[in-house]
């Protein structure tokens, strides 16, 4: 009997597991975390660009790169809340997303102007003295579009589901809904 009860309650909540903003003026900031993340942030971004460019020859690509970059912004947000996030990215996320898709679609359409089918690709190789071979494939632009879009997506999620939800006073919201429902009934 007791065993069964234990099984049923094995993961009942015993403590609050998420920091809450409720009742305080802002995000409870932790200097240590913030500083660490600020240092880490550019490094992770550079790594994400590496993933984007290396995608042609190693695991990676626009997706993985974009996701890694996005996770960098997530770190900033977790460390410092929306204030911190705002200092990292000032542009509107929907615009970034739109730009990403625009780049991708334009990459699809440009070959048509040169008499190729939609989404056709070409690639060139140059030898640059002292640097090595440089390869450029037009489909890289497509990957850049993907990268941009994913970064924009993560930023947008941080804005809407991250910052959008946390600062809301849910209780008051629901109280109002309830009152409205009562008024309707009357």
């Amino acid at each position: 009997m007791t065993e069964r009860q234990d099984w049923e309650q094995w993961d009942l909540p015993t403590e609050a597991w998420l920091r809450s903003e409720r009742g305080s003026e802002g995000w409870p900031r932790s200097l240590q975390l913030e500083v660490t993340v600020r240092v880490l942030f550019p490094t992770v971004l550079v790594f994400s660009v590496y993933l984007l460019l290396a995608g042609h020859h190693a695991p990676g690509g626009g997706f993985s790169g974009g996701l890694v970059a996005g996770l960098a912004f997530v770190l900033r947000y977790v460390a410092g809340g929306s204030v911190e996030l705002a200092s990292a990215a000032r542009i509107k996320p929907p615009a970034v997303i739109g730009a990403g898709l625009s780049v991708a679609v334009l990459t699809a359409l440009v070959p048509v102007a040169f008499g190729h089918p939609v989404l056709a690709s070409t690639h060139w190789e140059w030898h640059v003295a002292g640097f090595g071979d440089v390869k450029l494939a037009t489909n890289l632009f497509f990957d850049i579009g993907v990268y941009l879009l994913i970064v924009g997506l993560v930023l947008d999620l941080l804005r809407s589901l991250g910052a959008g939800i946390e600062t809301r006073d849910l209780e008051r919201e629901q109280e109002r809904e309830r009152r409205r429902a009562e008024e309707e009934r009357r």
Partner: protein
Amino acid sequence: MTVDVTTAVLLGGLYGVGFYLLMQRSLMHIILALVILGHGANLLLQAAGGPPGGPAFVGIVPAAAMSDPLPQALALTAIVITFGLTTFLLALSYRSWVLLGHDEVQDDIEDHRLRRRELGEAEEAGR
């Protein structure tokens, strides 16, 4: 190109749990069900390519020993799509929580009204 038993069992387990959770009333369970089913579907897609081989990198692995790259690409696409839709569903469940005050899937009101009229209060009460 028969899939190995271990993968098949894993797929069966994932789909089974997914289906079970999908038929719950709690929205969170349903979302988790869709996530788990998504994992299952992606794995299935990957497994559909045939027996595994080396990673598909030209010049590193001989072509004959490579795993089929196409289902991987398809699965990759599917993973990202599932992710996007999961986030949307989460946002919707949040909205539902705000508006309804709970996160359970409720029965349709009009259907209910018709049922009540037709089948009588007794049966409704017995449910």
